[in-house]
C-alpha cells in the first residue's frame, strides 16, 4: 500500500528547488541588469503564493473569486499596520496576518454558501471594491489614497533590503507554500474540495459538511493571500489602493487558468508565464517592433496580452500544465496516439 502518495515522479523536485536557488547566481553572471530580472521574478514569487491559494479555492473547490486582489490588499495593509504602527516583529506578522486575512476570507465565504458560480464571482468582485473603499476610509491607519510607506522586512535579525535578499526570502516561502498546497490537495481535504466542485450531492452523501468546507476553503485561500500580502508590503516598501486594482484579481484568475485549473503546478507555471510575458517578453517584442514601425506602444502591449490570453483559452483550455501532461503522455506512448486521453 505504501507509495500511493509517491506515485508521481518526485525525483525532480529537489533538482527544481536547487535550480530555484541557483538561478539568481546564473542571472548575475549572465547579465549586468540582473536586479531588474530579479524584481520581476520576485513579483512572480509573491503572486505564486497567492495563485496557489486561489487555485485551491477556484480550481479545486470550484468557488470563483474575482476579489483576490482585495485579500492581498488586506494582507499587505494589515502587516504594514501591525509592523510599523503596532510595533510587532515581522516574523509575528507573518503568522498573524494570514490568520486575519483568512478570517476576512470567512466573511466573504459566508455569502458563498448561498450564492453560486457567476453570482459568486461578481459578489467577490464587489467585495474587492468595498475593501478598496474601506482602505481609503480608514485613512488614519492606511494613509488613505496617498498610499503607505512600509518598512523593510527583518527576519531573525537580518534586514531583507534589496532584490537579491528578497528573492531568497520570497522563494523560500513560495516553496513552502507550494508544498503545503500539495499536501492539502493530496490529503483528505483535497478530496473534499474536489468533491464539492464536481458533485455537492455526492459530497453530502459521503458525510461532508459542505458549508464547513466551503468556508474552510475560503479561509485557507485567504491565508495564502494574506501571506503573499505580507511579503508584498515588505518587499515593495510602498502600497496604495492603485496596487490592488480589480484588474489584478482578473490577472490572478488568468494565471490560474493559463496554468491549468485544478493543478498546483499549473498555478505556479501560469503565474510565471503571465508575469514574465507581461513584464519581459511583450516589452522586448514591443521594443524590437517599435524600432521598425510607429506604434502606440502601451495599447499594443495590452492588445498582445489580450490576444495571447484569448488564443490560450480557445486552443489550450487545459492550460500549460495540461499541455505538459499531454506532451509527456504523447512521448511515453509514442507510436500510439492517445488522443482521447484527456477529454
Amino acid at each position, binding site marked *: 500500500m505504501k507509495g500511493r502518495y509517491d506515485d508521481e515522479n518526485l525525483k525532480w523536485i529537489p533538482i527544481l528547488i536547487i535550480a530555484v536557488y541557483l538561478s539568481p547566481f546564473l542571472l548575475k553572471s549572465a547579465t549586468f541588469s540582473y536586479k531588474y530580472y530579479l524584481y520581476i521574478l520576485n513579483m512572480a514569487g509573491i503572486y505564486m503564493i497567492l495563485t496557489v491559494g486561489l487555485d485551491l479555492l477556484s480550481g479545486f473547490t470550484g468557488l470563483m473569486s474575482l476579489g483576490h486582489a482585495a485579500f492581498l490588499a488586506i494582507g499587505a495593509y494589515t502587516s504594514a499596520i501591525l509592523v510599523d504602527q503596532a510595533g510587532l516583529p515581522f516574523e509575528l506578522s507573518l503568522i498573524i496576518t494570514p490568520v486575519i486575512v483568512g478570517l476576512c476570507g470567512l466573511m466573504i465565504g459566508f455569502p458563498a454558501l448561498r450564492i453560486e458560480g457567476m453570482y459568486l*464571482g461578481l459578489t467577490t468582485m464587489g467585495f474587492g471594491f468595498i475593501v478598496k473603499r474601506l482602505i481609503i476610509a480608514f485613512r488614519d491607519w492606511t494613509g488613505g489614497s496617498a498610499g503607505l510607506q512600509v518598512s523593510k522586512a527583518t527576519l531573525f535579525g537580518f534586514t531583507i533590503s534589496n532584490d537579491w535578499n528578497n528573492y531568497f526570502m520570497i522563494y523560500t516561502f513560495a516553496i513552502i507554500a507550494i508544498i503545503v498546497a500539495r499536501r492539502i490537495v493530496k490529503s483528505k481535504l483535497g478530496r473534499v474540495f474536489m468533491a464539492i466542485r464536481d458533485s455537492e450531492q455526492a459530497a453530502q452523501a459521503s458525510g461532508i459538511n459542505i458549508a464547513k468546507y466551503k468556508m474552510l476553503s475560503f479561509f485557507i485561500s485567504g491565508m495564502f493571500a494574506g501571506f503573499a500580502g505580507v511579503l508584498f508590503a515588505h518587499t515593495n516598501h510602498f502600497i496604495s489602493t492603485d496596487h490592488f486594482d480589480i484588474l489584478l484579481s482578473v490577472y490572478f484568475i488568468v494565471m490560474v*487558468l493559463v496554468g491549468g485549473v485544478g493543478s498546483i503546478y499549473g498555478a505556479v507555471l501560469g503565474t510565471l508565464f503571465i508575469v514574465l510575458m507581461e513584464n519581459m517578453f511583450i516589452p522586448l517584442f514591443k521594443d524590437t517592433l517599435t524600432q521598425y514601425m510607429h*506604434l502606440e506602444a502601451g*495599447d499594443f502591449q495590452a492588445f498582445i496580452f*489580450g490576444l495571447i490570453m484569448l488564443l490560450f483559452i480557445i486552443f489550450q483550455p487545459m492550460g500549460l500544465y495540461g499541455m505538459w501532461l499531454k506532451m509527456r503522455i504523447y512521448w511515453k506512448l509514442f507510436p500510439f496516439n492517445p488522443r482521447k486521453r484527456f477529454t
Partner: protein
Amino acid sequence: MTSLFTDINQEIVSGIALGSIYALIALGFTLIYKATEVVNFAQGEVMMVGAYVNFFFVTQFSGMAGGLNGWVFTAALLGSIIFALLFGIILDYIINRPLKDEPVFSIIMATISLAIILRSLTAMIAGPISLVPVSPFGNNTIKAGGVVISVLDLAIIICAFILMALFFFFFNKTRWGIAMKATSADAEAAQLMGIPVKKVYRYVWMFATLVGVISGVLLAPRMALLDTTMAYLGLKAFPAAILGGFGSIPGAIIGGILMGVIETVSMGTLSFHFNWVKEINDIIVWIVLIVVLMIRPDGLFGIAKVKRV
C-alpha cells in the same frame, strides 16, 4: 436647513436617467446570458466601440453633408446599427462558438480578454486623445413639475423602455424568442427538436451588440468627452444586472434603474444629511447587491435553477 426630502424628485429623475444607461448595458448582458449562458464581460467595451464607430460616422457624414443636421445623425445611427449587427456575428464566431462547452471559468476569461483586446484595439485605431462627441439633441432641457431633464436623458430612458418591451415581447411571444428560450434551457434538445441553434446564437449576439452599440451612441454625448475609460461603465452595470436577476429582461431594466436611483440619491440627499455616506458612495450599489443576494441568491427577478440528483 432644508428638510430631508426637498428636491429628491429631481434626484430620482436624474437617477432614472443614469439607471437607464446601466439598464441598457445590463440588457446586453442579459440577452446573451439568457440564450447562451455566457456572461459577456466585454459588453462595456462593445458599448465603447459603438460610441467610437458612431463618432466616426458622424464626422464622415457631416464632412459629406457640409455640416451637422438631423440627417447626419440618422445616417450615422443607421451605419452604427449595421456595424453592430456585423460585429455581433464576428463575436459569435470568435467567442461563442469555440467556447460553447467550456466551463464558466474559461468563458468569463475569454470575454475579459476580448474586453482587453477591444479596448486596446480601439485606442490603437482612434488614438489616445479624447474625442468630443456632439449630441443630436443639443443642450436642450425639458422642465415639468419642478423637475428638469435633458432631452438626451429622456431619449435614453425611452430607448431603454422600448428595447425592454421589444425584447420582452420577442422572447415571450414570437417563435424565434421561444426557440431562444428553449436553446438556453437545453441546447442539445433544442437542436434535436429542429431549432437551428447556431442561428439562434448568432441572432442573440447580434441583438446584444445592437443594444450595446445603441447605448454607446446615446451615452457618448452625455460623457462630454469620449475615451476608452467609458468601458468601465460596464462594471457598474453588473450589479444592476445581478440585482434584477441575470437572465430576466424586466429585471435588468428595473435593477439598472434601481441602481441609478440609489447612486444619485446617496450622492445627493443622503450624503448631504449623513456625512459618512460620502465614504461609501461608490460602493453603495455593491453593498445593496450583496445584501439582496444574501436574501435572494438569484436576484430580484431571477429564477432559481433546480439541479436534478
